[in-house]
């Protein structure tokens, strides 16, 4: 997954390799594409943002003497005459994991220079993400209809609304931005920009399939954050 073209590049596994990388001259992550390293640094900072949201949610939920709303009922759906707990959230989780899987395969086919397959898989990922955002919009409008506001709600502790809108809203924004980029990259893949090494809009960097992996890192991160939101906000 690294770029062996960088001069003086040698791969040494384990902690020995890490010590040599860290103590080396000029470039720390030798052989790692700079775009990928920067995406990882961005994702690290984003991890801190989401951690702060989830930790403040923990603090808010833990410090209120009022009973917390039962997520399994609040997010339940009434289908075919039966109340199914947390149904919408479960479907959203499966949709996001599906799109994560198609993205992983897109990265694989990208590195194999299989343009068509890569493009179709990115498109499938984008459609999965779009479905997710759509269901989130449905969930928001349903809850707003039931009277959930950032300052009050009919189910229990008043803090529930503000944490819900803040956390899922921020995650939904990430998904939406990801979907936009997925559509752009699907177009760029189909147009063959990565085969020809065509330059992007704001960069002198030549197009390469490593860009698909960088986009994939972002998309998997969105899925990763949802794993934590699903566990702490919806299941806990």
């Amino acid at each position, binding site marked *: 997954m690294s770029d062996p073209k960088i001069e003086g590049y040698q791969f040494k596994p384990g902690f020995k390799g890490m010590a040599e990388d860290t103590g080396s001259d000029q470039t720390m992550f030798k052989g790692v594409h700079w775009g990928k390293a920067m995406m990882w640094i961005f994702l690290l900072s984003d*991890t801190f943002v989401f951690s*702060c949201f989830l930790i403040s949610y923990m603090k808010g939920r833990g410090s209120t003497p009022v009973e917390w709303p039962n997520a399994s009922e609040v997010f339940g759906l009434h289908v075919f005459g039966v109340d199914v707990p947390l149904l919408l959230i479960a479907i959203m989780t499966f949709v996001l*994991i599906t799109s994560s899987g198609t993205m992983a395969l897109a990265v694989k086919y990208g590195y194999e220079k299989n343009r068509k397959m890569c493009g179709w898989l990115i498109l499938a990922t984008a459609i999965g993400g779009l479905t997710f955002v759509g269901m989130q919009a449905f969930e928001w409008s349903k809850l707003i209809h039931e009277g959930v506001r950032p300052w009050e709600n009919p189910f229990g502790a008043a803090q529930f609304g503000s944490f819900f809108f803040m956390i899922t809203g921020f995650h939904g924004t990430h998904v939406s931005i990801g979907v936009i980029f997925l559509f752009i990259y699907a177009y760029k893949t189909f147009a063959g920009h990565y085969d020809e090494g065509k330059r992007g809009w704001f960069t002198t960097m030549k197009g390469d399939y490593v860009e698909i992996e960088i986009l994939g890192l972002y998309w998997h991160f969105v899925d990763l954050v949802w794993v934590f939101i699903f566990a702490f906000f919806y299941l806990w």
Partner: protein
Amino acid sequence: MEEIKKKEQEQTTTHKIGIYLWIWALLFILSFFSYMVDWYQFQGMLRWSLILIFMFLKAGLIMAFFMHLFWERYALVNVLLWPMTAIACFIFLMAAEFKYTLFTRLLYFFVGG
């Protein structure tokens, strides 16, 4: 040298599709299990521990295989994972804080100081 180069060459190409499909299937199964935790309405320690186990398994699988950290250079992996200890510290600090806040609220709202 030659051997290292050859090994790296294999890594720069791709991994077998089977790995991705296996991880994909495992993620589905783990998500199904965590949904079942809510379906059967497990409560207390059993619920919390099951939720955490499934969550960390899913997060680990996604990071290791979908985000390729398993095959990545150690220098990069360590730069990414060590800052997580700061988050863990923050969680412990705030856990102590919310217990104290709850205590003072109960004391002043209900007992009356």
